[in-house]
């Protein structure tokens, strides 16, 4: 994050646009780095003065911010072998002096005491001051500098936010554990998560700005993300929007890909190896359960067909209760791999139990069956035996999962989705609805009464 005075944004018609940098700034970034690098062996003060000289009214905010970021990536060493604090103490105990000759005498005396020459005393008197330390190497390249600047600028902009809405495609667990750790509150609004703090409904406060800013690295680490923020500037509220598709380069902090448990890691690598045709996403987008976020461990998808996997490993009693409720209410195709004592409490349709070791083979077998070739379709002409997970309706085999999916869509008022899908009208008919077309593209569904 940057000091407030380096915040560089444009405000137009109620919107706020941070002035992010792109490769146009490459040369200036390079220049700033080279000034510090060139001064290796010199005092920091000297490099700072040289940087000041390349400032002008157009770029001074950027240059000062660049300089600050570069200084975080510098190794320093002390200009003296003496301990400056000890040198000062001795000097001051003999002060104050008011003439040049008095001063000379004291310096000489102290130099003798430390066994060095007078110059060394002058050098070390404040040798522990930041600007007097010696540059010993610069460890940043221009591109990284630009990306770090952009991340810092976004964070600094959000320091003044009163509320943030965002969505991410993966990395959910990191983000949500961050939300919890930072003491924020979230509400789920469709695809988006709205973040505020406890006092937000009582006053417009920037108190949570720091927390929003700290969450940013986790969000931009996601493959796809969108952020909308409400920014308070004196007494006016501006809006800011940015997404991974805007072409701004952000520095991604290396977050270790740590799993909640080694179990998941093992399962992930096995799944990847055994079925290359499946799209496997860890911590996939969240499922809203009565306002709470539920983030399953995996989502496996091929074509239209998908299933989520949740591993219920070593959970505490309390956690199990909360989690079970969430799982029951989640209403998504879900495979729960649960330890026995937890499995007993579950009413879900797909449960694989285990005792100590994760039953990889059982899971793989389940996945293979679930995504068997016949399994890809919503609806098939009825021929021969009814396949597993299908039911017969008139001349059709209809996928049970598809029926479930349609039910959910209708409940949530997303009828268009059903109608567009292959076999959608058949499934609707099975569920007791029929589609009535009011025009070329307008339609509604009507419940068919059994008279």
């Amino acid at each position, binding site marked *: 994050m940057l000091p407030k005075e380096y915040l*560089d944004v444009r405000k137009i018609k109620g919107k706020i646009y941070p002035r992010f940098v792109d490769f146009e700034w490459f040369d200036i970034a390079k220049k700033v780095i080279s000034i510090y690098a060139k001064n290796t062996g010199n005092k920091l003060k000297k490099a700072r003065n040289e940087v000041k000289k390349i400032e*002008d*009214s*157009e770029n*001074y*905010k950027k240059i000062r911010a660049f300089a600050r970021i570069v200084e975080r990536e510098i190794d320093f060493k002390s200009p003296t072998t003496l301990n400056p*604090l000890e040198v*000062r103490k001795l*000097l*001051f*105990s*003999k*002060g*104050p*002096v*008011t003439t040049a000759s008095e*001063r000379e005498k*004291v310096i000489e005396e102290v130099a003798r005491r430390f066994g060095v020459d007078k110059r060394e005393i002058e050098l070390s*008197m*404040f040798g522990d*001051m*930041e600007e007097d330390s010696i540059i010993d190497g610069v460890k940043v390249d221009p591109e990284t500098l630009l990306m770090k600047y952009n991340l810092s600028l976004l964070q600094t902009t959000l320091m003044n936010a009163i509320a943030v809405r965002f969505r991410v495609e993966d990395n959910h667990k990191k983000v949500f554990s961050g939300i919890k750790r930072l*003491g924020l*509150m979230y*509400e789920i609004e469709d695809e988006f998560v709205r973040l*505020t*703090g*406890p*006092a937000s*409904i*009582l*006053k417009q*406060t*920037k*108190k949570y700005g720091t927390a929003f800013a700290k969450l940013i690295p986790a969000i931009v680490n996601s493959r796809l993300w969108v952020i909308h923020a409400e920014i308070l500037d004196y007494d006016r509220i501006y809006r800011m929007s940015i997404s991974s598709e805007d072409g701004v380069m952000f520095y991604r902090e290396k977050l270790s890909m740590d799993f909640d448990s080694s179990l998941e890691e093992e399962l992930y690598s096995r799944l990847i190896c055994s079925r290359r045709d499946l799209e496997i996403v860890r911590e996939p987008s969240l499922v809203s359960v009565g*306002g709470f976020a539920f983030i399953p461990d995996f989502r496996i998808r091929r074509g239209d067909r998908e299933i989520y996997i949740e591993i219920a490993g070593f959970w505490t009693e309390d956690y199990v209760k909360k989690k079970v409720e969430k799982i029951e209410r989640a209403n998504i195709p879900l495979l729960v791999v649960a330890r026995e004592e937890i499995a007993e409490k579950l009413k879900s349709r797909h449960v694989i139990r285990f005792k100590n070791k994760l039953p990889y083979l059982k899971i793989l077998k389940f996945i293979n069956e679930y995504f068997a070739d016949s399994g890809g379709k919503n609806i098939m002409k009825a021929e021969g035996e009814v396949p597993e997970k299908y039911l017969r309706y008139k001349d059709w085999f209809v996928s049970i999962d598809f029926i479930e999916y349609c039910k959910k869509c209708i409940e949530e008022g997303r009828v268009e989705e059903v109608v567009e899908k292959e076999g959608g009208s058949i499934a609707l008919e099975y569920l007791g609805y029929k589609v009535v077309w009011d025009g070329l593209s307008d339609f509604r569904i009507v419940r068919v009464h059994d008279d």
Partner: protein
Amino acid sequence: MFVKLSYDRGTIIAKGDVHIPFGSFDERVGCYRVLAYKYRDLVEYLNLSGIEYEEEVFDPPPTPFFDAEFELRDYQEEAVQKWMVDRRGVVVLPTGAGKTYVAMEIIRELNVPTLIVVPTLDLIDQWMAKLSIFGEIGEFSGRKKEIKAITISTYDSAYINAETLGNKFLLIVFDEVHHLPSESYRVIAEMSCAPYRLGLTATMEREDGLHSLLPKLVGGKVYEVTHDQISEHLAPFTIKRIKVPLSEKEKGAYDQLSKKFRDYLKKKGMKLTSMDDFRKIVMRTGFDKQAYEALKSWEEARKIAYNSKNKLKVLKNLLQRHRKDKIIIFTRYNDLVYRISRLFLIPAITYKTDQSERKEILRNFRRGIYRVIVSSQVLDEGVDVPDANIGIIMSGSGSAREYIQRLGRILRPSGKKAILYEIVSSETSEERVSRRRRRKLKNK
């Protein structure tokens, strides 16, 4: 009709089937939510309305019996009595009048878990020394995170941790309370449930007018005495101003630079009368090339005035004249502090000086091992420097508070006569600043 109150990160949640005033209904959790500082009003409302309630709001540290002996002066006694009427409000006392004792008496009488919020780490140390007669005191700051029956914190730490501290104390004392209304610090008061609140300061007013928020945050003014009313308790002092001309070379450069700045103002039809006008120019530097140049010139001109060679000569003369006295030199510019420190071999204290060295310098100054110290604004508020009887101001902003506080620094009752020298460059903007300052002092 039943309500259960609990504390949640700086707010109070009310669960029950009753309407709750002072806040609003929070859809996110399905019950009423109120900012913590409304706790006292809320409980009063419930009592008046005859609504039964249960509360799990406070989580205070265990509190021993505060037993200590100390004497109060009559005006301190009076201040305590006035505050006790409503157990809220601000006590205004001039620097050096012993504000700490007012707080100590209140802490002793109420005997409840108490948080004291102060501006600097130096002040933590100072309060710590005074309060230790009550037993073990906690420090909640950047250095330590303790919560004890009596805890001292800085405004910064108390702001960052407002949610955690909010339900731990029943009495909250704000030292130098004029800091509290700033946009961030006020959260400390809003997120605290403490029903009893005391503010202490020498001047309640703020240039930005935000002191109007104090009645809401701590309570209004309950007691005030002026410097003159209690002057017998304070040391007498005289002010001597020394005008110092710039050298020929300095003057040439200064005039050229300040003309650039004035021309810019004239061109834009702007006037420089308050900090706000100044902020406006700073705001413009982002898009106005000339504003950037003008401000740069102004900064350089100021630097010339502050660093003028002749001023250092005058300082040298003063140091020679007062060979026996204890002297504090103030200047606003860190560069100048270190220059003076190097030149005269005088211990320096700025915001860069680390805590242990700062403590040692002040201790040695108190003991007389160091006779002179030089410092920038870090010492502006409340650092106890007993027995210093000479002050030399090398620079400073035009704010009245700063001036009063700085005077207060050497107004310790020490028997000796105190002198305050002010070294100003003649015919520069500094002179105007100085004039503005004294005018404010007269109006007090």
